[in-house]
C-alpha cells in the first residue's frame, strides 16, 4: 500500500509540474501531436493504397509457355519449380486445344481465321497465380529467370510494367514513411528532452531540497520520466483525435468529389489499429525523451 501512495505522489509531482509549465507542455505535446498525426496519416494512406491495389495484385498471372516439342519430363520439372516457389499460389496447365477453345470464346470473330490455319498456333502453357502478399519485384524476377532457363520452356510472360511500377510505389511509401517518421520522431524526441531539461532546471532547488530531505534517488528522477510519458500520452491522444477527424474529413471530401464526377461512392476503410500505434508511439517518444534528457544532464554534470 505504501508503494502505491509513493507512486501516486510521484505521479502527482509530475502532473503538477506539467500544469505549472503550461506553455512548454502545450508546445511539446503539440509537436508530438503533429508528428504522430503525420505518421498516422502516412500509415493510413499506405493502408488505403494496399486496399485499392489488392485486386490488381491478386489478378497477377504469370504465363509459362512451353515449346511444342516439350516432353512430359520437362513439364514435371516446371511443375516442381512452381511447387517450390513461395510466390506461387496456384497454377493450371492449359493444353493447346484448351488455349484454342478459350481464345475463340474470348474472340469469336477470329474463329474463321483460326479454323483456316493448318495447325494450332496457340502453345501449351501454365497459368500461374501469384500470392499477392508475397509478390515483390526481385523475387518475381528470380522466379521468371529460373523458369526461362528450364528446358522445354519457350518463354515466360508477366505484366512486368505493372509489377515493377507497383513495387516502386510500395517501396516509396514504405521507405518514405520510415524516413519521414524517423526525422519527425527525432524532432519530437529532442523537443521532449529539452522540455524535461527546462523543467529540471526550473525545479533544481526542489530537487535539491528533496534530495537533502532524504528522498530516494529514484523518487527524484521518476517524476521526470513520468513527465515525459505524460507529455507523450497527451500528444498522442490529441494526435489520435486529429487523425480520426482528418480521416472523416478526407472521407467526406472524396465521397463528395467522386459522387459529383463519377456517381460512385468511395469507401475508405479506417485502420483502427493505427490508433494503437499512435498511442504507443507517443508513450515511447515521451519516455525516450525523458531518458535522453536525464542522460544529457548527467553527461553535462548538471543532474
Amino acid at each position, binding site marked *: 500500500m505504501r508503494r502505491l501512495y509513493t507512486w501516486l505522489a510521484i505521479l502527482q509531482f509530475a502532473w503538477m509540474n506539467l500544469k505549472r509549465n503550461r506553455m512548454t507542455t502545450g508546445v511539446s505535446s503539440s509537436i508530438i501531436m503533429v508528428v504522430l498525426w503525420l505518421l498516422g496519416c502516412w500509415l493510413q494512406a499506405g493502408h488505403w493504397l494496399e486496399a485499392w491495389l489488392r485486386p490488381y495484385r491478386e489478378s497477377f498471372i504469370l504465363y509459362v509457355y512451353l515449346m511444342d516439342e516439350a516432353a512430359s519430363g520437362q513439364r514435371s520439372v516446371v511443375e516442381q519449380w512452381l511447387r517450390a516457389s513461395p510466390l506461387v499460389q496456384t497454377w493450371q496447365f492449359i493444353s493447346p486445344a484448351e488455349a484454342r477453345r478459350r481464345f475463340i470464346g474470348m474472340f469469336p470473330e477470329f474463329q474463321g481465321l483460326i479454323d483456316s490455319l493448318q495447325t494450332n498456333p496457340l502453345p501449351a502453357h501454365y497459368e500461374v497465380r501469384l500470392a499477392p502478399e508475397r509478390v515483390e519485384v526481385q523475387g518475381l524476377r528470380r522466379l521468371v529467370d529460373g523458369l526461362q532457363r528450364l528446358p522445354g520452356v519457350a518463354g515466360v510472360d508477366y505484366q512486368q510494367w505493372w509489377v515493377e511500377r507497383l513495387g516502386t510505389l510500395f517501396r516509396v511509401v514504405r521507405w518514405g514513411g520510415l524516413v519521414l517518421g524517423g526525422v519527425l520522431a527525432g524532432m519530437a524526441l529532442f523537443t521532449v528532452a529539452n522540455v524535461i531539461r527546462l523543467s529540471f532546471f526550473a525545479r533544481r532547488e526542489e530537487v535539491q531540497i*528533496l534530495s*537533502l530531505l*532524504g528522498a530516494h534517488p529514484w523518487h527524484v528522477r521518476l517524476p521526470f520520466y513520468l513527465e515525459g510519458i505524460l507529455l507523450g500520452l497527451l500528444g498522442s491522444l490529441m494526435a489520435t483525435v486529429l487523425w480520426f477527424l482528418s480521416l472523416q474529413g478526407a472521407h467526406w471530401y472524396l465521397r463528395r468529389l467522386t459522387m459529383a464526377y463519377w456517381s460512385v461512392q468511395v469507401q475508405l476503410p479506417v485502420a483502427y489499429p493505427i490508433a494503437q500505434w499512435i498511442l504507443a508511439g507517443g508513450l515511447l517518444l515521451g519516455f525516450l525523451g525523458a531518458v535522453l534528457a536525464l542522460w544529457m544532464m548527467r553527461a553535462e554534470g548538471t543532474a
Partner: protein
Amino acid sequence: MNGVRAAVIQTFQLGHTYDRRRWLFRDVNLAIEAGDFVFLTGPSGAGKTTFLRLLLRELHPTEGQILVLGQNLRAIPDARLYRIRRQMGFVFQDFRLIPTYTVLENVTLLLRLMGVPPKEQRQRAIRTLQSVGLGGLWRSYPPSLSGGEQQRVAIARAIIHNPKVLLADEPTGNLDPEMSVEIMRIFIRINASGTTVIVATHDDRLIRLVGGKLYAIERERIQLVDQRPINPSLLPVEALG
C-alpha cells in the same frame, strides 16, 4: 541526562579546503553526543555551512572521516545516502520552501514520497505545525507568510519525520530578534524531545542567551569553547518538571 551517551556525530582528522591553498579547518576531531544542543560559530566564510554540508554529505571532505549515527559517510553508496538523510533534518537560512506548494504540501514533502497514507500525513503535519505555532496556516502558500512563519514551516518540514539530528544553517539570519528567540525556543523544545540539534550561527547574543555547547571555527580548527546548560527560561514547561 546521566551516564555515557552515544556519539551521533564524530569526526576524525577532518579537514576541508576548496582550493588546496586556504584550509577552512584541519585535523578536526570532535564528538557530538545524542541529545546535545550545539552552536557552531565563527565569522562569515569560516566554514560553518561547509561543515553542515559535510555532515549531510552534500560534499566530501578533503581529508579525514565523518561518522553520522555510527555510519562512515564516505562508505555509504550514493544510492543509499537517503537512508542516513532520513534520520536527519535540515533548516536553511533562506527557508527554501516551494512557493507553489501549500504549507501542508511543503511540510509533507518527504512523507508523501515515503508512502505515508494521506490521512496520516495530514495529521502529522498539522500536529507538527501546531508544535511550531502555525496550526491554522496549513492551507496558505509560503509567499503569503512572514519570514518567521516561513522559517517555522521549514522547521516543521525538517522535523516531521522525527529525525535524530537536526541541522540548522543560520536559521535566524533573516529574522528580527524577537522572532529569533522564538525560533530558538522551538529548537530547544525539539532538543528536549531527544533530537540532537546543531545550529550554525554568528549571532553571539543568541548563543549567550540559549546556552548549550559552543564550537567555534578559528584558525583552521573547530574547538569546543564553551559549555553551559540551556537557559531554563527558554525550556518548555514539561522539560522543567
